[in-house]
């Protein structure tokens, strides 16, 4: 019954949407003007050719600020929803779980260095090449988890590692907010660039864009690692029953 109602409704909705999209310009004919204006002004005004990074971290930086905070709120939410209740503490440490072999742990430890380098590279070149804080942050989170697996095995203890990740995540979120406020203090307008623009194509150029990338990278790395850790902790927790 329900699936028939839904099928009928979605059929109508889909048909109406199809009629609506026929009103769009045909595929391949972006009408502008927003993107075209940005493509014209960004190289001169921001000394970077990475139009997406300039959009994300400068022209539409407020969206990114909001998005960072969505990530932040979701991590706080996951931590709250998956918090270990007092009645469940018995399972902490999860004895009887297989500890990874020495070889696996050595392998994980050996990978930490290269993966971290890759992640940091992607983050700091975000204003020059595709990538940046979002994808780089996930790579760094992967390195954090590898370090974790290599160092401790899967014996997750709440104190220590999670507090550290919480700190990293909050630092990244606070970093982007601080960048926004620094624009207000140094240049009189929230989120306004206040650093030298440098020479286009150099690592230290494009003003606040790379700084924003680093803050986002920290935030994303902390957030992803923290959410993984919360879920992992739940999986290792023994049931109260």
């Amino acid at each position, binding site marked *: 019954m329900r699936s028939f109602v839904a099928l009928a409704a979605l059929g109508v909705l889909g048909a109406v949407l199809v009629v609506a999209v026929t009103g769009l310009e045909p595929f391949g004919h972006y009408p502008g003007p927003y993107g075209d204006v940005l493509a014209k002004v960004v190289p001169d005004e921001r000394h970077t050719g990475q139009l997406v990074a300039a959009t994300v971290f400068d022209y539409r930086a407020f969206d990114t600020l909001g998005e960072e905070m969505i990530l932040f709120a979701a991590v706080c939410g996951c931590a709250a929803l998956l918090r270990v209740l007092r009645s469940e503490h018995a399972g902490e440490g999860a004895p009887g779980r297989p500890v990874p072999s020495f070889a696996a742990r050595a392998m994980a430890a050996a990978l930490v260095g290269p993966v971290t380098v890759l992640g940091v590279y992607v983050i700091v070149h975000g204003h020059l090449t*595709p*990538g940046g804080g*979002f994808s780089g942050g996930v790579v760094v989170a992967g390195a954090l988890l590898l370090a974790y697996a290599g160092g401790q095995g899967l014996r997750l203890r709440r104190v220590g590692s999670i507090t550290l990740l919480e700190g990293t995540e909050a630092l990244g979120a606070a970093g982007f907010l601080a960048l926004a406020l620094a624009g207000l203090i140094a240049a009189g307008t929230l989120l306004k660039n206040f650093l030298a623009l440098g020479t286009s194509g150099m690592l230290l150029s494009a003003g606040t864009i790379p700084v924003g990338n680093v803050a986002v990278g920290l935030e994303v790395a902390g957030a992803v690692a923290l959410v993984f850790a919360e879920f992992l902790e739940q999986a290792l927790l023994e049931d109260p029953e």
Partner: protein
Amino acid sequence: MTFLQATCLVVVALLGTLVVFTRDPLRQAAVTGIFGLGLAALFLAVQAPDVALSQIAIGAIVVPVLVLLAMAKIREHDE
């Protein structure tokens, strides 16, 4: 529209449908990962490398791994 773009679009549509109709969550997690990669390929084909990289990192890795972790908890309960 290039042939590559059309192929990617059709593949994405098919994979998306497959995700919905794979009812077993564990197998679905794998299909979702492939769907995420298909989307990333499509994004590359429409000249969006930034979105493609994020999609690989988040859509094809983070979300499927979270699903697996959630399933680890849920299945352990069933035993």
